[in-house]
């Protein structure tokens, strides 16, 4: 790795920004096909109702309308599948109710798809949808976990008694109980992890086409993982073979997890295009996005930590109830289990950990992965609890963490994971220094003189990225593998196309991957282009989520490049009349060791495609593919410190400083990495201070627009003080870990711990997310008594 001006480690400006910043990006909604029609999805306005006849005659007769389809028309088409089978404590499989793409007998959330109207224009389709008359009988709705588990609660699905999907556990319960029996101190906490609405800047969209001449379907869709959509839509819903179903996800404008799932609309559009023999386009409106994009988080937990007299953690017991929404979205079931419960060792040596999770159906939008997916929920609980333990034991908040850090690797946790490498002291020290933790009391006093309560909070977190390996996740219930493919095609004159099964929805893969390949092959950065997002071009792929793209997808590319070099070595050896073992490859040239005789990659590539003088038995061409199945997760970790000032009169919280010291593994492009950290921090701060999805008891979405759902804005954020201390992942050749979710995982507890620290002198000891001004003011009033 030569690390030249555009190589690994350089802050190269992003290739893709030339088109994004000049309005030349090509998003799904930018695609128009000849003869296309527009679909409008009629959604349920009731959270729970039996539906009888759906009268569509008036809509069908409306101007411009070509067709109206309802659940009845789609009967016989498969339901929307889910990707992960969870087993309950007693070994029974989870309850997995059918999820018809268009509702048949019942609607189960406000936003549930009821019918599609297809017309010449989007406006005509939308107006005609107003003419559809749905016979409905409203049923009582369960809009929260508490409502779902109440005695006599209405059932979202008749086959799920008590609205329970599964009751899962991880860890050794007996060992954990024993740890509590032996404890000197037990500290407990109740936390709610607030429900969030993802709000990608690009709304979902899709355009489907069917070619009767070839029998081939093409679906352009806003997806983080087009191959996964092909697998689920093709194999499970429509019963189409892979070679007749092409999925293209062009430029994708943000996803945060909400564009992982295979959605009903994708199935409805594709099926409708087949029925009509014309392309059908649909673009979700923002208000519909609020009630149809998968939501995130939504946990209620109670936990206790057992400690010895010195503050060593002995055991942790976590009981969580999770809201899955009305139907099981693609990764819904694994988020509160295998992406959550197994995180509870955190960076600490707690010898006994037990976590149980009961997940519920409710009459709300399906819940799925959202930036961090399970890991923010776990980290928030753990770091709040550790802070509380310090306060209750009268210990320093930093020292209690340091006292319990893991320092020997590899480290086997009591909840399945094995950490390969890390240095939690280093990131802690770096953050304390950068945040001037030691000087805080002076800042607190200075703020007090201005009538403000200043507080500081810390979170020392660990997360797990690049969920793997396939055999293990398969044994835990995953219905897909979690490897990645990468192909590297060296063209005859030495330029390179790289094909990856990951996909970018803003992360800058076209730049990062090009840096790796250009660095390894010694070709110009500009001579390398990255291709992704099209099932017709990419061998296979699992897409982008869980911060997996560099660690898993980047490694596949790395391995493919190595294969290219290996083949090139043979060709060069032939041309140079040397043995392949004597050929060294460096800076784009194959050289006979100890001589100045060499061939450039370009010369070797040309020879590979014009094989006049060529090694016997070697295939022409210079293109290699690698599939990489990781041996383990990767484990980014770090310390986040937040500083706030509270106005005690209004309860307003001003976030005045955020410091991060992160270990995200090898950094390919520092600018992109910092951008990812900034975005994740903004997301985490949004959760901690601003964002809250609220449902009314009847299942109406109260926070259904930007009028009352608060997204973080630039003015809500301080300048971020980002620092790095890198340890390399030991089981992938890049040493990469992952960075996309670090901010949203690490920072929320730091912010809330800071708010509590600020308010502690007023007698406040607890605070829920988001710490809105009203919530803070109310806590102050309660403390006043």
């Amino acid at each position, binding site marked *: 790795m030569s690390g030249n001006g555009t190589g690994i480690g350089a802050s190269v400006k992003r290739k893709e920004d030339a088109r994004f910043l000049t309005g030349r990006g090509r998003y799904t909604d930018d695609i128009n096909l000849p003869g296309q029609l527009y679909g409008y999805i009629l959604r349920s306005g009731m959270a729970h109702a039996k539906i009888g006849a759906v009268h569509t005659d008036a809509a069908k007769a409306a101007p411009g309308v070509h067709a109206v389809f309802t659940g009845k028309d789609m009967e016989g088409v498969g339901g929307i599948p889910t990707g992960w089978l969870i087993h309950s404590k007693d070994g029974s499989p989870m309850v997995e109710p059918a999820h018809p793409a268009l509702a048949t007998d019942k609607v189960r959330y406000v936003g549930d798809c009821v019918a599609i109207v297809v017309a010449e224009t989007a406006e005509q389709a939308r107006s005609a949808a107003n003419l559809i008359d749905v016979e409905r009988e409203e049923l009582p709705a369960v809009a929260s976990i508490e409502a779902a588990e109440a005695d006599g609660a209405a059932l979202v699905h008749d086959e799920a008694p008590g609205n329970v999907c599964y009751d899962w556990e991880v860890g050794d319960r007996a060992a954990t109980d024993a740890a509590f029996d032996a404890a000197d101190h037990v500290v407990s906490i109740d936390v709610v992890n607030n429900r969030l609405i993802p709000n990608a800047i690009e709304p979902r969209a899709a355009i489907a086409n069917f070619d009767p001449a070839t029998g081939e379907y093409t679906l352009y869709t806003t997806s983080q993982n087009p191959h996964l959509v092909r697998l689920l839509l093709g194999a499970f819903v429509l019963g189409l073979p892979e070679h007749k179903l092409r999925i293209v996800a062009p430029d994708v404008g943000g996803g945060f997890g909400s564009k992982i799932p295979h959605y009903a609309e994708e199935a409805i559009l594709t099926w409708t295009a087949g029925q009509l023999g014309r392309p059908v386009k649909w673009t979700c409106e923002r208000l519909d996005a609020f009630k149809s994009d998968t939501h995130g988080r939504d946990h209620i937990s109670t936990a206790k930590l057992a400690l010895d007299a010195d503050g060593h953690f002995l055991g942790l017991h976590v009981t969580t109830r999770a809201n899955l929404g009305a139907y099981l979205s693609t990764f819904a079931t694994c988020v509160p289990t295998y992406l959550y419960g197994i995180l509870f060792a955190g960076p600490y040596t707690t010898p006994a950990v037990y976590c149980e999770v009961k997940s519920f159906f409710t009459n709300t939008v399906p819940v799925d992965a959202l930036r961090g997916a399970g890991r923010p929920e776990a980290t928030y609980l753990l770091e709040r609890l550790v802070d509380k333990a310090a306060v209750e034991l009268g210990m320093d908040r930093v020292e209690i963490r340091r006292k319990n850090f893991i320092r020997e690797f590899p480290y086997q946790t009591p909840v399945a994971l094995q950490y390969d490498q890390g240095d939690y002291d280093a990131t802690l020290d770096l953050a304390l220094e950068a945040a001037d933790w030691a000087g805080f009391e002076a800042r607190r006093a200075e703020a007090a003189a201005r009538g403000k309560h200043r507080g500081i909070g810390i979170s020392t977190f660990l997360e797990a990225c690049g969920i793997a390996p396939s055999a293990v996740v398969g044994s835990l219930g995953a219905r897909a593998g979690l490897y990645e493919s990468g192909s590297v095609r060296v063209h005859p004159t030495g330029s390179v196309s790289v094909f990856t099964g990951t996909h970018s929805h803003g992360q800058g893969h076209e730049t990062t991957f090009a840096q790796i390949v250009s660095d390894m092959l010694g070709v110009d950065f500009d001579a390398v282009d990255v291709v992704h997002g099209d099932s017709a071009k990419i061998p296979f792929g699992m897409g982008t989520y869980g911060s997996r793209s560099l660690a898993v997808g980047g490694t596949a590319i790395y391995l493919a490049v190595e294969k290219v070099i290996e083949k090139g070595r043979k060709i060069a050896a032939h041309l140079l009349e040397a043995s392949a073992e004597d050929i060294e490859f460096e800076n784009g040239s194959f050289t006979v060791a100890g001589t100045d005789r060499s061939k450039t990659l370009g010369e070797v590539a040309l020879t590979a495609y014009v094989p006049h003088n060529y090694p016997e038995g070697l295939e022409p061409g210079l293109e290699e593919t690698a599939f990489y199945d990781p041996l383990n997760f990767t484990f980014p970790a770090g310390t986040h410190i937040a500083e706030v000032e509270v106005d005690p009169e209004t309860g307003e919280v001003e976030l005045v400083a955020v410091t991060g010291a992160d270990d995200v593994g090898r950094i390919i492009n520092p600018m992109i990495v910092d951008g990812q950290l900034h975005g994740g921090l903004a997301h985490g701060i949004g959760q901690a201070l601003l964002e809250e999805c609220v449902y009314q008891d009847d299942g109406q979405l109260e926070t259904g627009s*930007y009028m*009352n759902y608060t997204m973080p804005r630039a003015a809500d954020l301080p300048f971020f003080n980002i620092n790095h201390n890198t340890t390399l992942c030991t089981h992938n050749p890049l040493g990469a870990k992952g960075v996309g979710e670090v901010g949203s995982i690490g920072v929320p507890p730091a912010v809330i711990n800071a708010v509590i620290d600020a308010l502690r002198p007023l007698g406040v000891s607890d605070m829920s997310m988001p710490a809105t001004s*009203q919530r803070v003011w109310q806590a102050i009033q309660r403390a006043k008594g």
Partner: protein
Amino acid sequence: MNDFTYHAPTSLDDALAALRGAEGGTLIAGGQSLLPIMKLNLAAPTDVVSLAGVAGLDGISDDGDSVTVGAMCTHAQVAGSAAVQGRIPALAAMADGIGDAQVRNAGTIGGSLAHNDPAADYPAACVALGATIVTDRREIASDDYFQGMFMTALEDDEIITAVRFPVPARAAYAKFANPASKYAVAGVMVADGPAGVRVAVTGASGDGVFRMAGMEAALGGSFSAEAVAGIGVSSDGMLSDTAAGAEYRAHLVAVMAKRAVEACG
């Protein structure tokens, strides 16, 4: 959004004629309130009559005792006006705190007053400063103009042409904004002007802008933050939503009033 006929008159008379000739016509100024409700199908006018090209609705003039703002002046123009900044800085600052830059560059004072959103800022400024709403046919005192949430004294076909603000001795506006929408959760304008000391509140009540007689009396006695600090605000009739329940809102009104008095200097 339904189809409608668009009119672009250049005179008040033509605008009035277009409005009267339509089955369900409406005026449009900056569109910042009208278009969102049309998109939601909460309004479906047959005809939309733009005031953008109508002569005589723009401009801000300093008339000595008062400042007159044309109905089509945007919030950004009011905020940036030397006359407003010089004579009634509280009004300029208020306009500068409306929504976001896009809203301020499109939304107008006339549109805001005609719409009379209970969380809009201008109603508090008009009532506290004792402004006069000038229309195509008459002048309406602020005290008579605002008639509850989204209700005004305007007739169906009446067009606001300007707003005349008497210059106060001192005035200030304190706003607690909704974190999501940036509309007022509690906005209090305090003014000591020709009409006496006035305290007008927006954002907090379901009935729209209202005055606080108790605070006005206290400030009349002694114009100081201490004078209003002890005056509690009842939560009766206060709005309640996700950002602020009635009790918290009432509290915020008291805090904003105190801060506005402090800011008067």
